């Protein structure tokens, strides 16, 4: 299965992946309308200290602690993609505590949110990868 990988040496710390992610999951067709004056809450985030920076998102682990620990059964693995049923999630945050990478986060409506490789929006392929100007985020089989 193809997953998102990051090459931290190539990351410029431009944060474009965060904006592309927020736009892709906004349901809007116009980036300006989607993001103007909006505090974005993307599913991929740049971790940065000094000269080192890289993007962190869900790794779609083969043995996912978030899924095993989910108290509702809202997190499941569908064709290798760790998927959240936001209607079933009660926002207990057990998955946020369990994820070793900090790749699951709260959202505004109470349920948690996470990267689902853009399969639920209209992008087809992950928007963070498509929009990365320096090839620091890739979508490939390893």
């Amino acid at each position, binding site marked *: 299965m193809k997953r998102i990988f990051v090459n931290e040496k190539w990351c410029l710390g431009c944060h474009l992946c965060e904006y592309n992610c927020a736009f892709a999951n906004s349901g809007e067709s116009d980036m300006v309308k989607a993001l103007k004056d909006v505090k974005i809450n993307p599913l991929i985030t740049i971790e940065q200290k000094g000269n080192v920076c890289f993007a962190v998102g869900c790794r779609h682990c083969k043995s996912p*602690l978030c899924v095993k*620990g989910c*108290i*509702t*059964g809202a997190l499941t693995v569908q064709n290798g993609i760790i998927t959240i049923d936001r209607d079933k999630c*009660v926002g207990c945050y057990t998955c946020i505590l*369990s994820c070793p990478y900090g790749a699951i986060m709260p959202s505004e409506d109470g349920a948690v949110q996470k990267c689902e490789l853009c399969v639920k929006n209209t992008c087809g392929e992950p928007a963070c990868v498509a929009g990365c100007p320096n090839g620091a985020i890739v979508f490939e089989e390893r």
Partner: protein
Amino acid sequence: MRYVIIGNSAAAVGCIEGIRKLDKTGSITVISSENYHTYSRPLISYLLCGKTTEQKMKYRPDSFYEDNKVALLAGKKAVRIDKGKKQVVLEDGMEIPYDKLLIATGSDPFIPPIEGIDTVEKKFTFMSLNDAKELEKAISPKSRVLIMGAGLIGLKCAEGIARKVKSITVVDMADRILSSILDLDAASIVQWHIESKGIKFILSDSVVSFSPGKAVLKSGRSVSFDILVVAVGVRPNTKLAIDAGIEVARGIVTDEHCRTSADDIYAAGDCSESIDVVTGERRVLALLPNAYMQGECSP
């Protein structure tokens, strides 16, 4: 291979999913005393406050047993494990043979032997879906509720019914709420938040006797109530294991592979105890993610 699981909650589901990763064809039988599709027990408070529904509470999809080729015996109680014949005997006399057995019987609420507690008419515990349904039937906007125990179960119960009753008083003998997980500073922050929702606490005190509609506390104070919820703690369900001669301390003793002292018998979840990797000591660590992972590692 014939796998038999006693219990139908997180550890059982972990075990079923663990088995099916390794063995697609062996038979799996689940014996469940509750007459329900597997559901998430921690969600009973969310059900009462309207954040979820009985359908959404299902821990796995409706097709779960079919998809995993599991025979579910719901509403059946296992009464005996016969290690020699390798079978589980049910209340109705039915015998279920096993090659590998998982005991995932969970825990039951502890009812302390307090004077007059048997005479309290509207007395509830808060562990199962049936408990939640019975409590919901009993409460009204006029109810004054007394909850014994300011632990996770007592407080989740309070959260679940807070908007549906007249008043809630929580009594706990510890000097702070959530004493097993919070220190004084942290507990006082959480207590302040809960009090702002109208829930009252009486701490460092405990009920010594009940008379109709009234609880008398150790301090001499008394609390009037219509409905009592007992949430002072739980006890692992170890009776089947003890009767079968399996080693039991606080919970059913298990090794790092969730094996019990008996061949081909495993235990997982709230009924079991194992080494806590943080402290190196044996303990019952009754948390849902642990139960799932213990169940999963059993096969």
